[in-house]
């Protein structure tokens, strides 16, 4: 009997120690793509993880060079060629990117608009350094809005592009990072790595899991240095957030941030942040921008158009709007009461 008692006491000890997660995670961080990239890889030989991470760093640097709209490279060359209004064949590194961005722009009713580069530059958000803090000329904003540059203004025949709107200038800042993360995950799989996270400046895609448990992801509060919500990932999931706190300047106490509403030419002002969970990082990236611009009134319609099922939007008046699927997927970590308004199911 005593032995049975001893055995019953030992069981939880065995259980507790047996279930601990002491496996090693390889972590690497590097600056690329204008942000800090964090690579987490579980359960492979450190030498392999080091090689894979070094390759991903090189890939990010190459993609940034190719896809930066305002530094010499394939995309800036494409923008120069667009101004000629003549047919041309762009660099192969940018064509699939432009096609996918155009498709997502159409689904978003133009709220994610990769063709408003001139408007982004007018506000000064095209540079890695923040704008000096002066407002752009109102007339210049109005002119660009009236010219209504849109990805559909550029047509593709074979491999040749033709621009039909002189105001079109591509800036893929709301999309290229997601696209790059998708490519990085592909690269990890080429190395045989099945359990990893690529986090680029807070936006991430996770595959596999952390040993015998899922990956644990925290979602930071947009206004506090605390965790607003959390989720677990076991498989392949992207988590993206766009917020008004990422790049902004203030004039007379008013915040002017980098997410420009293409309809008004001014920063969208009804939203603080949008978080999207989706299996594809590029889609999640474009969707967070589109839904941020859509705001509390129109986000449901745009999410449905873009086939996004998991959305959390925090409005400028601190109300959390959420799809039911998102509510089931995440856990709110805040102790203080928060007002949550659920939408109808998105799909």
């Amino acid at each position, binding site marked *: 009997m005593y032995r049975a008692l001893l055995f019953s006491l030992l069981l939880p*000890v065995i259980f507790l120690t047996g279930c601990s997660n002491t496996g090693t995670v390889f972590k690497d961080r590097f600056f690329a793509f204008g942000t*800090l990239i964090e690579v987490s890889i579980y359960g492979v030989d450190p030498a392999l993880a080091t090689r894979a991470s070094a390759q991903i760093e090189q890939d990010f640097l190459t993609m940034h060079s190719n896809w930066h709209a305002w530094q010499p490279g394939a995309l800036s060359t494409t923008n120069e060629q667009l101004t000629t209004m003549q047919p041309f064949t762009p660099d192969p590194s940018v064509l699939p990117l432009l096609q996918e961005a155009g498709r997502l722009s159409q689904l978003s009713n133009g709220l994610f608009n990769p063709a408003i580069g001139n408007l982004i530059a007018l506000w000064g958000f095209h540079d890695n350094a923040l704008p000096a803090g002066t407002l752009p000329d109102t007339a210049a904003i109005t002119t660009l809005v009236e010219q209504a540059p849109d990805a559909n203004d550029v047509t593709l025949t074979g491999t040749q592009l033709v621009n039909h709107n002189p105001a079109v200038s591509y800036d893929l800042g709301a999309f290229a990072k997601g696209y790059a993360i998708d490519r990085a995950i592909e690269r990890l799989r080429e190395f045989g790595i099945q359990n990893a996270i690529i986090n680029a400046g807070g936006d*991430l895609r996770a595959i596999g899991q952390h040993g015998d448990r899922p990956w644990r992801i925290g979602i930071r509060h947009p206004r506090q240095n605390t965790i607003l919500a959390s989720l677990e990932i076991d498989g392949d999931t992207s988590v993206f957030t766009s917020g008004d706190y990422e790049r902004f300047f203030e004039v007379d106490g008013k915040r002017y941030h980098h997410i420009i509403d293409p309809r008004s030419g001014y920063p969208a002002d009804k939203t603080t942040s949008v978080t999207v969970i989706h299996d594809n990082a590029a889609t999640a990236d474009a969707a967070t921008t589109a839904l941020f611009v859509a705001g509390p009134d129109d986000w449901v319609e745009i999410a449905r158009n873009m086939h996004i099922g998991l959305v959390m939007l925090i409005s400028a008046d601190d109300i959390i709007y959420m799809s039911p699927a998102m509510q089931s997927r995440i856990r709110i970590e805040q102790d203080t009461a928060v007002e949550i308004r659920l939408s109808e199911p998105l799909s």
Partner: protein
Amino acid sequence: MTRADRILIILVVCALPFLYARMWTGNTSAAYIQIQAGNNKPVTEELSADRTLHIHGPLGDSIIAVSHGRARFVSSPCRGQVCVQTGWLQTTGDLAACLPNRISLALLGQHPRFDTINF
């Protein structure tokens, strides 16, 4: 029951709360600060001693305070000051970066509550 059995039972009973705290609730307090300047190899130091660090980046020096097991950017020669506004990092896995000056801070420890943070 032998004397050895009794000692074993006492040890097991005493170990349970410790093991629960250690393995399941996770001790999220950090033990180390990892500083990376540019894409140089990161430097990892203990968090235990209070001190001020001057880390050189392309824009100049970022000043980092380490105090009571926490760390933060005190100042940085960037326009946005997002790094400074991040405030104190205090739990394992916390991360702050001055992107213009290409300097990052991360707190390391054995049991991070989260594997990574979305923001």
